[in-house]
């Protein structure tokens, strides 16, 4: 039997969950889907059932409040549900999701996409070594399992996330070998005025940094990890001073550690929106390619709305409000009048977004950081393709993401290009003297996540297969 709902929301982070709640309050049936067992998204990821008791954290509390709200609402939550296909069917949207070892269709009259973000990591030699985790990836371990990737951990990357990760490592009993960040203290001083509207976050960040200093953990400002030593596991890293454009200068220094958390900002996860037919626009200040949308999250595709970080990296606080806007917008599409409420929310969202985009700005890599990727560095992890192989393909005339993907398989592997396409596109743009905005990502392809053939096929009799009439002889 086909599941039906008025509004389907993909992603139950602060944006998606609030979209679902706002739409449900307008009287619509809402189904909220997420890959994780419980709502919260990456930022407010819920603890696993292995954690019986643990001290409270701001993220945990915010997530618990959200989970309570969803539980108390009329929203139907489907956890551990991976949407793998989105298609328009008879004026509605049909989603196909993987849940409990089966695939099931869901039909919705409107669709809210709140798929969040993924991490950008500038490839450096050795970044594929076991023990190297994304910065955001590390936070997933902290929040879900209260676990650490190692005992003596090097934390490296841009923006505020390095300090959150370092603080969490210390809170969970680990040792931070050092924090290595391309940002300078000056970069942070310059954004202080923009942080004043959020004294809570400002104070928290200040405490993280003060704690590192008081405990003698080195903070290497305006530096970057330039290579990972080890082989089958991380043993240490090399790091270097950066020029103002973040190109590496100076001699390499060494650090010992058994794991490395590495990240250079977030990228909107746009594949679901692309599958729904939403066009992308390039907004570097929002993390790169962003589905085209208006301030309330309405896209050019009727009945499809987008919110939160998947609409551009603006952070969790903005995502909550953006979610409500998009949920109300979806309700409007189905006949409710939500104009007044949306009008009230817009300035609140704008304020939160200003703060969020300031943090995003600190996280966005400057051009010189691309020089960390040496000729022999693997860029496409799935297919083990090095920078020199990709450069040769581009030099041979492949001047689009699709062309490099076809000729070389960069983006054809298991991750679907999620961790190489930004680097590849930048290489094409640089080689061809074009703007990054002129090199869009490859054509999106379903499934959004790998799906076992046996799960797709399900139980069937041969005679059930709707085999069409044979081709002309």
């Amino acid at each position, binding site marked *: 039997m086909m599941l039906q709902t008025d509004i389907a929301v993909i992603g139950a982070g602060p944006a998606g969950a609030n979209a679902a709640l706002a739409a449900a309050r307008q009287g619509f049936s809402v189904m909220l889907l997420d890959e994780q067992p419980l709502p919260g998204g990456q930022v407010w990821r819920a603890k696993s059932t292995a954690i019986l008791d643990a001290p409270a954290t701001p993220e945990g509390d915010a997530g618990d409040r959200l989970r309570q709200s969803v539980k108390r609402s009329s929203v139907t939550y489907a956890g551990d549900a991976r949407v793998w296909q989105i*298609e328009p069917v008879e004026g509605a949207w049909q989603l196909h999701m993987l849940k409990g070892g089966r695939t099931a269709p869901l039909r919705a009259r409107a669709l809210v996409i709140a798929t969040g973000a993924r991490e950008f990591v500038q490839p450096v030699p050795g970044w594929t070594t076991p023990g190297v985790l994304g910065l955001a990836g590390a936070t997933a371990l902290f929040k879900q399992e209260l676990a650490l990737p190692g005992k003596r951990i090097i934390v490296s990357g841009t923006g505020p996330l390095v300090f959150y990760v370092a603080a969490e490592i210390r809170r969970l009993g680990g040792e931070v070998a050092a924090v290595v960040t391309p940002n300078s203290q000056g970069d942070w001083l310059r954004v202080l005025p923009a942080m004043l509207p959020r004294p809570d976050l400002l104070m928290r960040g200040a405490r993280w940094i003060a704690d590192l200093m008081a405990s003698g953990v080195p903070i290497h400002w305006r530096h970057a990890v330039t290579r990972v030593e080890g082989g089958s596991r991380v043993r240490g890293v090399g790091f270097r001073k950066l020029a103002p454009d973040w190109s590496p200068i100076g001699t390499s220094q060494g650090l010992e550690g058994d794991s490395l958390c590495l990240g250079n900002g977030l990228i909107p996860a746009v594949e679901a929106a692309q599958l729904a037919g939403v066009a992308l626009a390039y907004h570097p200040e929002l993390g790169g390619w962003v589905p085209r949308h208006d301030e309330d999250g309405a896209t050019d595709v009727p009945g499809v709305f987008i919110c939160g970080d998947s609409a551009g990296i603006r952070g969790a606080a903005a995502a909550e409000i953006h979610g409500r806007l998009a949920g109300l917008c979806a309700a409007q599409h189905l006949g409710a009048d939500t104009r007044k409420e949306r009008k009230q929310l817009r300035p609140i969202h704008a304020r939160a977004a200003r703060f969020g985009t300031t943090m995003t700005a600190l996280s966005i890599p400057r051009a010189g950081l691309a020089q960390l990727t040496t000729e022999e560095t693997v860029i496409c992890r799935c297919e083990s393709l090095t920078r020199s192989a990709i450069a040769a393909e581009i030099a041979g005339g492949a001047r689009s993401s699709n062309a490099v993907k076809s000729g070389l398989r960069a983006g054809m592997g298991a991750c679907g290009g999620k961790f190489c396409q930004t680097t590849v596109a930048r290489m094409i743009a640089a080689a061809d003297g074009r703007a990054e905005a002129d090199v869009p990502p490859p054509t999106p392809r379903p499934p959004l996540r790998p799906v076992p053939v046996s799960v797709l096929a399900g139980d069937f009799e041969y005679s059930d297969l709707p085999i069409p009439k044979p081709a002309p002889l």
Partner: protein
Amino acid sequence: MTRIYDIAVIGGGIMGCACALRVAEGGMLPIVLDQGDLGQGASGVNAGTLSLQIKRVRLMPYALKGHHEWARMGNAVGFHKTGGYTLAFTEHEAELLYERQRLKAEAGAPISFVSAQTLRKAEPGLTQKVVAASYCPEDGYANSSLTGQYYRRRLQDQSISYHERCPVTAVDHDSNGFTLATPIGPVRARRLLLAAGAWLRPVAALLGVDLPVRARVNTVSVTGRMPPLVSTVIGHATGLLTMKQKANGTVLVGGGWQGRGTPQAGRGQVTAETVVPNLALAQYALPGLGNARVLRSWTGFEANVPDFYPLAGALPGVENAFVLGCVRGGYTIGPYIGRLMGDFILSREPELPLFDPARNFDEEAT
């Protein structure tokens, strides 16, 4: 002074590029223009099957020649001659298989019928539920993803001009030839070849010619790397399954199950309604495929006209304009028919006859 090319080719797929290479060999100065990248339409997104068992009887001589072309291109296009089995799972399908493969064998394809025992020995991973099977040692596959890279290199080697992301938006023509409006400015040529695949109809319309071109939206899927499951190209009596495991372990599944969308709208879409039974059929044939994960499904537009035979010849009503496309089995036959078309444009007698685009299309194929 603007350069005047001997011929402008609209469409940088296999046929357009193969024709450009041929006319250049014959001394002409061609230019190739593509709205996207070279070889990224049907030429680059089809399943890459090179199987005589799924070719149309009347096109068999072209397909046999086509196989030789692919064998010659070899590694550069990921060519593998593996042999191929076509399977029937019911008595009805077995009848269909006998009837069809016999006709194809008569047309020159070295197709034979094999016993269940022979099949099991050759492909132990296949289901035991096979009722009948045919075999063709000439069958195999190439990697269609490499089409663009291959032809880009060939054009560069021959110093043939090509422009990607260069859609032709208008065509003027007078007694001196054609002037094409493009993003790189006007392109002038004495002759014009339309080789725009599923986009032939709107391109011909720029010259005021209505070609009855339609498009099928064929779906292809690929899995992650798997241990060896199957070593030959596997088909189905109805033609609705093609499957092969690449050297890297990935398994490619096609067979012409229909997605949605139109070339005019820009892209085709996979639909669960057809991709699911396509993969179920593949798993039925090869049970071990059940453990594989589907990483990507996509569609490609396969152009055709009502009789499902090629358009290959002079464009009706426009002097010095030609059209090439709508070849069923176009991946296999493309390199060869592109060469024939080049000969025709060079005013040489093609080795095999072309297919007059001015013919009457009323007779629907059965």
